[in-house]
């Protein structure tokens, strides 16, 4: 029996992408990466620089975690304000190591669509848009994205529209963690309760599973950090992450 819930699986495995001494950024509309950065700050025994879209630099939250990942609460304890133009310029001049960037659809090469379902000119659904991803994705060192729904609608062979393309290295879903190898997203590790066949069936692009391993269980420190950030389970309930229904 795993100690992961679908929610803790996504947040903790996003946190595990953060590396010592690097510059890491979390943006707008990015609740789970915000939590992942805070988990890493509390659970891991190393330093990294956490920039966020509210302008915070290594913020140390005094009170509860804000619902909005762009809230000025994320500048608490910050000793500088590093605002939008600054962090974009930092990124395009090569100073951003890891950025968490959202995506509605992801293809097997790690290109992303945040713009439309259907044609761009006459969309069936107008999506929010890519935010900074078209500028950041080609200029940062590594991007990571997440999907709360692992399905053939979100992980696709062909995007409706290519909002951004570049250095997307990692994708975390409730089922698995993808890592880009030789230009393609391959399954690096998978949730202990799912099988590789189930992952393949729920994934719309061809993916290499030859090196996939079960994802290591969460540590006590990771779980404790996440509990401290979401003590009453509000974020977990809002995220409403479920495993895909798989045929028995």
């Amino acid at each position, binding site marked *: 029996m795993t100690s992961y819930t679908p929610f803790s699986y996504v947040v903790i495995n996003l946190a595990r992408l953060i590396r010592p001494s690097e510059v890491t950024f979390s943006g707008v509309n990015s609740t789970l990466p915000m939590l992942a950065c805070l988990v890493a700050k509390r659970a891991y025994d190393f330093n990294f620089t956490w920039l966020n879209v509210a302008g915070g630099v290594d913020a140390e939250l005094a009170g509860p975690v804000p619902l909005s990942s*762009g809230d000025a609460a994320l500048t608490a304890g910050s000793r500088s304000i590093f605002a*939008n133009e600054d962090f*974009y310029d930092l990124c395009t001049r090569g100073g951003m190591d890891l950025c968490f960037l959202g995506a509605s659809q992801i293809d097997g090469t790690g290109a992303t669509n945040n713009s439309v379902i259907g044609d761009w000119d006459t969309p069936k659904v107008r999506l929010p848009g890519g*935010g900074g991803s078209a500028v950041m994705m080609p200029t940062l060192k590594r991007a990571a994205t997440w999907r709360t729904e692992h399905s053939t609608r979100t992980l696709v062979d062909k995007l409706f529209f290519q909002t951004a393309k570049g250095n997307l290295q990692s994708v975390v879903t409730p089922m698995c963690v993808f890592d880009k190898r030789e230009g393609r997203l391959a399954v690096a590790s998978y949730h202990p309760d799912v099988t590789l066949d189930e992952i393949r069936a729920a994934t719309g692009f061809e993916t290499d599973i030859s090196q996939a391993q079960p994802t290591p269980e969460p540590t006590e420190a990771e779980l404790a950090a996440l509990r401290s950030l979401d003590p009453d389970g509000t974020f977990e309930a809002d995220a409403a992450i479920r495993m895909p229904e798989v045929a028995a």
Partner: protein
Amino acid sequence: MTASEKLTTLEEMVAAIPNGASIGLGGSFLHRGPFAFVRELIRQGKRDLEIIKASPGYDIDILCRAGCVSRVRAGIVAMEGNFGLAGGYRKAIESGAVKLEEHACMTLTAGLRAAGAGVPFMPVGGVHGSQIAEVSGWKKIADPYGSGEEVWLIPAIRPDFAVIHAHAVDRDGNARVEGSPHWDRAMTRAARKVLVTAETLARPESFAERPELTLVPGFMTAAAVHVPQGAWPGSLAPVYDVNYEAAARYVEESADGSIAEHMAAAPEARQEEPA
């Protein structure tokens, strides 16, 4: 001491905006947006506006629902918090009622920086591989100095008005912002006219004490107005947080096709009522 030439009322400030104007709005998502100004645009029945903002949400959504907008330039649009997509905006784009020029946040700011610097375009990093360049009609050039690098160029974006909500303004239009300026610096340098709504009216001496906190110097401000709770239902940190209850009620009520209750509940509407 001369009388203020900058201070006005919200009604007069908005009355000077013609139909068809392009308006850059300050703030980001639910944070420090000039939302009382936005609601006054609706009360005065403005039409055919172009809204320019990297990350609009509540503002573009309610303006779309009220039929005030025909064009928008934006990078990411959502209600944020935990409210998801902006339904009024989404419907307006899908029906063709509002035309979108899609951006990548920093590309919008590159266009504003071009206007602010008085040049016809501005290079921007990245964009390679994005189809936004095609649909928005951008061009790229090879580095004329021979590095071999290709760079995308964004045409200047010059809004008729930039409107920001500041923490404080003085009688001469000096505007102070605490915390992140979001995109307001580039926005206020790019626009033909800068309009400031402000949470408090402060003494000119307080600006002289800490001039580096002034985001917009008074000579650049065309008009200013004191609007307490001007970012409602959004936040103005550290003075007030997002009013999630009011924002949730807006999302529910507007999805049912009406914004009347929300408009009546706004702080600036309630202040107008006789005591």
